[in-house]
């Protein structure tokens, strides 16, 4: 009796470290001295950003042979949800990729979780390299609203939404690239008449919201966008800009231009179905470019959303320096390297839409087209950001309301009511604190 009790005690004690190891997470090997530069980002290694940043790290290591560079890959969702908590601790990276806008980088800035970079920007000339609307997303005031205040983040690249189209399918039905909204509707009707749903869409994630916003922009001017995005006034949700856009989208859904069962599809579903030729057109972002180049067999092309001066798009994600970072100076140096021509030109060549690159170095025709499309928007100062930016949590509201539109369970007026309520409440909360 006694011996079996001894054995069980020994076994329990031996098992204890295993149990503790199982329930404790890994501590992360992040360095905490000036000899290590810890970088967090969530871009694919094959993407334009991934390649350009690999070059930047190479340059940094050449110029700082004593410093060890540690890169920890994250996912967009992880960083977006957890940054507020993680950055309050001490185990933070020195420089981190973060999403731009009031609801994300603005929040972190307002809570004092990021190091202001205004002085570094002036010293190193970043404010001269980045033009007008690109700087909007780099600066945030005490309430976390973009457009003014200190520099908190530095973008390396831009992004925008355009229309990818399947040239083979267009040729099959004898259709030309549309240059106005009416022409686009004619093209879509031509496809629908042949039993082909023209637009690849995804109701469960961002694509539907961006399509809706493109239609809002078709009827808007910069003043309306400043009201909506920068809180320069109160946007009228039942005014002509939004009402026309929602009713147009509603009639597109009813005409079968958007698949009626796309409410639960994800962006991945949308992209895959465009690439495999199920749909002839996809309205989505420049972030799809690299993948479509790699994977699409059919001949394809790109054009800006027809008829719009204002387009969905903004600066790319920002490099931010957490307030509790161990090596902020190394971080600033790294950021500076990413803005150098050697790195920016890699972004240009791979279709990454650099903020400070030279378009003439691009040899590939499609990449040149992409960059020219982006440049055209910049020339008209047409970047109008994204529909879910104004208030925190608005992304889920936009997704949910537009799902109702796809499922035809709400009228356009009701959808706008829902969007308005969430916007007004969220704005009150944001300005209240």
């Amino acid at each position, binding site marked *: 009796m006694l011996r079996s009790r001894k054995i069980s005690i020994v076994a329990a004690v031996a098992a204890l470290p295993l149990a503790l190891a199982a329930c404790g997470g890994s501590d992360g090997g992040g360095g905490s001295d000036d000899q290590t530069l810890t970088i967090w980002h969530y871009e694919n290694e094959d993407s334009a950003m991934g390649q350009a940043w690999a070059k930047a790290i190479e340059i940094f290591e050449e110029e700082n042979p004593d410093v060890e560079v540690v890169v920890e890959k994250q996912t967009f969702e992880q960083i977006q*949800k*957890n940054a*507020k*908590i993680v*950055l*309050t601790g001490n185990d933070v990276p020195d420089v981190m990729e973060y999403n731009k806008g009031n609801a994300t980088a603005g*929040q*972190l800035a*307002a*809570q*004092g*979780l990021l190091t202001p970079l205004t002085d570094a920007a002036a010293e190193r000339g970043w404010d001269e390299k980045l033009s007008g609307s690109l700087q909007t997303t780099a600066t945030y005031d005490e309430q976390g609203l973009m457009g003014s205040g200190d520099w908190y983040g530095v973008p390396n690249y831009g992004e925008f939404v355009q229309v990818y189209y399947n040239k083979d399918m267009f040729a099959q039905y004898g259709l030309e690239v549309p240059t106005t909204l009416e022409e686009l509707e004619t093209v879509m009707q031509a496809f629908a008449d042949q039993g082909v749903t023209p637009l690849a869409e995804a*109701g*469960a994630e961002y694509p539907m919201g961006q399509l809706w916003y493109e239609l809002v922009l078709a009827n808007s001017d910069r003043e309306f966008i400043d009201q909506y995005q920068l809180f320069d006034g109160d946007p009228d949700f039942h005014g002509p800009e939004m009402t026309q856009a929602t009713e147009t989208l509603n009639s597109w859904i009813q005409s079968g231009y958007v*698949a009626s*069962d*796309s*409410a*639960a*599809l994800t962006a991945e*579903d949308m992209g895959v*179905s465009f690439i495999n030729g199920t749909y002839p057109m996809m309205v989505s972002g420049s972030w799809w470019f690299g993948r479509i180049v790699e994977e699409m067999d059919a001949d394809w092309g790109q054009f800006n959303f027809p008829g719009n001066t204002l387009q969905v798009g903004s600066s790319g994600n920002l490099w931010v320096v957490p307030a509790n970072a161990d090596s902020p100076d190394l971080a600033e140096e790294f950021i500076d390297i990413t803005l150098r021509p050697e790195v920016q030109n890699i972004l240009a060549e791979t279709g990454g839409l650099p903020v400070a690159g030279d378009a003439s170095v691009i040899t590939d025709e499609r990449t040149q087209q992409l960059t020219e499309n982006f440049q055209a928007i910049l020339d008209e100062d047409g970047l109008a950001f994204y529909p879910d930016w104004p208030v*925190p*949590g608005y*992304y*889920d509201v936009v*997704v*949910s309301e537009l*799902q*109702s539109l*796809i*499922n035809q*369970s709400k009228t356009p007026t009701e959808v706008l009511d829902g969007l308005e309520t969430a916007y007004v409440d*969220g704005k009150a*909360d944001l300005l*209240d*604190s």
Partner: protein
Amino acid sequence: MPTRTDPATDQVPEATRAPEAADRRRRRPAWVPYLPYLLPGAVAFVVVIGYPFAMNVYYSLFKWRGGMAPMRWNGLGNYSDLMGDSAFWTSFQNSVAMILAMVVVPTLLGLVLAAVLFDYLGRRFGPRVAAFLRATYYLPQILPVAVAGVLWNWILNAQTGALNVTLRGLGLDNPPNWLGDPDIALPSVMLVLIWVQVGYPVVIFMSALQRVDPELYEAAELDGAGWWRRFQAITIPQIRPETFVVTLTCTVAALKVFGPIYVLTRGGPESSTLVPSYYSYLNFFDKSKVGYGAAIATVLTLVIIVVAVVILALQSRAERREQEGR
């Protein structure tokens, strides 16, 4: 139910002790020797559950954006806002659906499956076959929720999922939009939850059935009772303790459910699959309304405590009745 043995006392027998007054100071309560064994559990409880819960209640009294933002006192304001929040009430309505999918159906189904596996298949094909089948029923419980989510999305995806592709192949032109139609999404999620949850009652009930004295069955058979009558009169009352355990744990799990919702529908479409814990998560992380999210979590905890207490009270009453003799 095994009868409880009295804890061994290590006190000196009555007759040889000193007078009563001095005695009371030296007589230790019976549970004191157990203290060293209870201490680690108590410490773990305070650190992992007690303290965070107290902090949660504390946060729910403030308006707070999280991180290093200032906390502003709001008293019971968050709670009164909750009462008027339609999303909150929707989420509790959906909880009832969760209870149906994670308690009622798996318990009933689990009982039937356990009886079939134990009584019939076990006798016919041997205990190894029964054990193997039991393990396969339990497999969904072991599968990580994220993997299960990807798997079910492959099956239920409206356009490319296996189910709809098969239905289209059979000639059905417009198969249902399993995860995208707000009327169908909740039943689809419930189906996935039943699949996940059914293995747990099967395992518990199979071991419970082994405990039932076979002589009771033989006596009943001799008296002419059929299988269903034996099941009703002997099996179900005999495994009552396990039934209570399964009901209690599954109900708590159903009220807390988060993973499958997050992975399958993110509370959509159109908030039709919103549940309290997911709503709390949205407020914490997406909307940065930490105080409000904490209030939701507190209310959810209180509801679970009330439900658990009710179930435990019912269980004690049933045990008491049994001991008094029916």
